[in-house]
């Protein structure tokens, strides 16, 4: 209860320095004011109740498709006809990649290349890398269209809003367009492939915490950066859960995904609050750093959430943490290739191809720890049986 006031005062102090208005820190419009019982602030403008409800429900749905190949599974698929895209012969699949600027995307991209090699009917997988720049990706898509060699176009958008016009343009060119990971604000692509989503991710982690942390326990939420839809929904869902539960969210901090900052922040919070009972992470890349910060301060690692990265899973196994790891599986990079070939073969595909989103828990932890793979490898790549595994993924044989 005290913290918002303190923040307010501090902001005003700084505002005098900065000559900007105090009121200017108010977040943008929209979002419903959650119960202000906790330090979680206002609900994100990204929060959409219907999507939240849907994703929460989808967690319990059994997907269709082969259980041992989750990248072929789909949750409640609504199939669309693709006969008009049917095309004989070998295909050139084009891919506009947002970038390979983090390990998740590196694992995914490696997996997609391996998937393409499995299919002899693919003559070439032509990929262009936008290096994390919206404008470059728009131009890249234009360039791929201009080259006129693509049989199908796969897009992994850098940002949802910015890439929408470019994807629309590609649809208008008559190409079958497949979008995955982040979406676009148009339904012109033949299919949009994604795991259940951020609400499910955030909620799973938050539910675990509220379940394990004692009443009125202190929870620290660490977020990478604001404004990224995938991450915003995770926090939005966690906020809903936290606001309902009897926990005290003592802080919501942005870390830039920088492990040193994570350790610093955790350390600062430990100094300020003495102890922390749970840590919620919007992504697992820095979970290890957060856990280590507790160890370095001579404290037991509290209940913590992570992701399917090896370093966290190993730490979890080794130190017997109380932890959970919701995932955003990298096997989703296999699906677009499969979908593209299905479409070019005229087979039906789901309009929205929702992939299952497993959660790693203490029970199934063992099967995901892969000692031969690098620490930042994501376990749910679905790539264990692919040719070139594990060395193409940076692992030892």
């Amino acid at each position, binding site marked *: 209860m005290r913290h918002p006031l303190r*923040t307010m005062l501090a902001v005003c102090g700084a505002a005098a320095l900065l000559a900007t208005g105090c009121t200017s820190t108010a977040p943008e419009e929209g979002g419903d004011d959650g119960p202000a019982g906790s330090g979680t602030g206002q609900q994100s403008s990204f929060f959409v109740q219907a999507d939240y409800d849907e994703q929460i429900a989808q967690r319990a749905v059994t997907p269709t498709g082969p259980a041992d190949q989750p990248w072929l599974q789909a949750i409640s698929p609504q199939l669309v006809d693709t006969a008009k895209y049917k095309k004989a012969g070998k295909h050139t699949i084009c891919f506009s990649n947002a970038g390979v600027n983090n*390990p998740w995307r590196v694992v995914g991209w490696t997996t997609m290349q391996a998937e393409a090699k499995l299919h002899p009917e693919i003559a070439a997988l032509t990929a262009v890398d936008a290096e994390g720049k919206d404008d470059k990706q728009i131009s890249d898509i234009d360039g791929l269209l201009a080259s006129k060699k693509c049989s199908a176009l796969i897009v992994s958008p850098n940002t949802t809003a910015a890439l929408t016009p470019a994807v629309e343009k590609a649809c208008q060119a008559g190409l079958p367009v497949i979008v995955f990971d982040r979406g676009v604000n148009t339904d012109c692509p033949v299919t949009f492939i994604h795991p259940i989503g951020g609400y499910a991710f955030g909620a799973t982690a938050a539910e675990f915490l509220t379940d394990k942390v004692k009443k009125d326990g202190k929870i620290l939420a660490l977020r990478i950066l604001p404004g990224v839809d995938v991450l915003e929904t995770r926090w939005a869902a966690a906020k809903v859960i936290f606001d309902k539960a009897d926990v005290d969210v003592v802080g919501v901090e942005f870390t830039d995904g920088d492990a040193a900052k*994570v350790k610093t922040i955790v350390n600062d919070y430990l100094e300020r609050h003495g102890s922390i009972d749970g840590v919620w992470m919007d992504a697992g890349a820095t979970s290890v750093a957060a856990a280590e910060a507790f160890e370095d301060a001579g404290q037991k690692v509290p209940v913590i959430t992570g992701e399917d990265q090896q370093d966290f899973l190993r730490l979890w196994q080794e130190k017997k943490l109380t932890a959970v790891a919701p995932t955003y599986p990298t096997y989703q990079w296999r699906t677009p290739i499969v979908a593209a070939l299905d479409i070019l073969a005229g087979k039906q595909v789901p309009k929205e191809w929702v992939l299952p989103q497993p959660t790693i828990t203490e029970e199934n932890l063992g099967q995901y720890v892969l000692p031969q793979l690098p620490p930042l490898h994501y376990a749910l790549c679905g790539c264990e049986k692919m040719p070139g595994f594990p060395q193409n993924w940076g692992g030892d044989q």
Partner: protein
Amino acid sequence: MTVTAPPPATAAPERSASRAWRLLRAVPPIWLVLAAVIVLIAWRNPTFVEPAPFLAFLRRCAPLAVLAAGQVFVIIAGEFDLSVGALVTAVVVVAARLSDGDAGNTWWLIPLLLAGGALVGLVNGLVTTRLRVPSFIATLGMLLVLSGAVFLWSGGAPRGSLADNFRQFGRFGVEIPGLGQLPYAVLILVAIGVGLWLLLSHTRFGHQVYAAGGNPRAAGLSGVDVRRVRTAAFVISGLSAVVAGVLLGGFTGVTAEAGVGYEFQAIAAVVLGGAVLGGGRGSVGAALAGALTLQSVFTLLNLLGLAKSLRDAVQGLIIIGAAAYAAHRLRRSG
């Protein structure tokens, strides 16, 4: 009055009051700012100045402080080194792959990394002094080359992992009864700080660094091999980046983002310490103080609950303020 730590004056003895005042005035102002910030932090959070939290604070400052202590050589010699952030990243990624979690690799890995850092500094120096590429561009190019090459080599994301005895430098320390753990990082920081301070202020080489930056023509005509001195400054910066990388990698473990943006932070720390871009002025001590100040200001702002984004803004204002103050003093004194 200068920013550089003045050598012991041989002036006639003076009355003690004015002498004390002189001594106080001889303290670079950044130390006073640092003290003020720490007092403010302690006021908000008294535990901060207890040994353990304060040592933890110093430990997490260590990478940036070491980086600043190396960067200050380059700045005094009249150049820039923008490649240090990428070099820190490279150190972490290369160390992870070569160490591969095996404690037996650490003993040869660290010398190898240091050699690599020296090589990077050497190339920076040679490109700047022999090819006459402005150091801004030369080290910007090195930044791009390093960050490209290292991930090209590791396949886009770090591989392997850091052995515990490699990580201990940045993470653990020696237990001292009654005081708690004295982090190795703090010991290394002190050792490097003292070492570089001695090198800069008390050796022939150090004096040549000041001369090469202060007036390259006069230095050259006095027999200073300006190009070699500048190159050596880059090598020192490269070596300090390796140490910073080892400390940071130890502190955080393997990440792909280690060191990102550290080049600007290091330059900012050096400028906070009163060094003037363009050369000839600055000191290791003040650069260390600048780094500590930068970090402690972040701690303070965090303690005050200021939004992270506004911390950037405050940092920007502090940097401008420090540079303006240094420029003002320089003008006033001649």
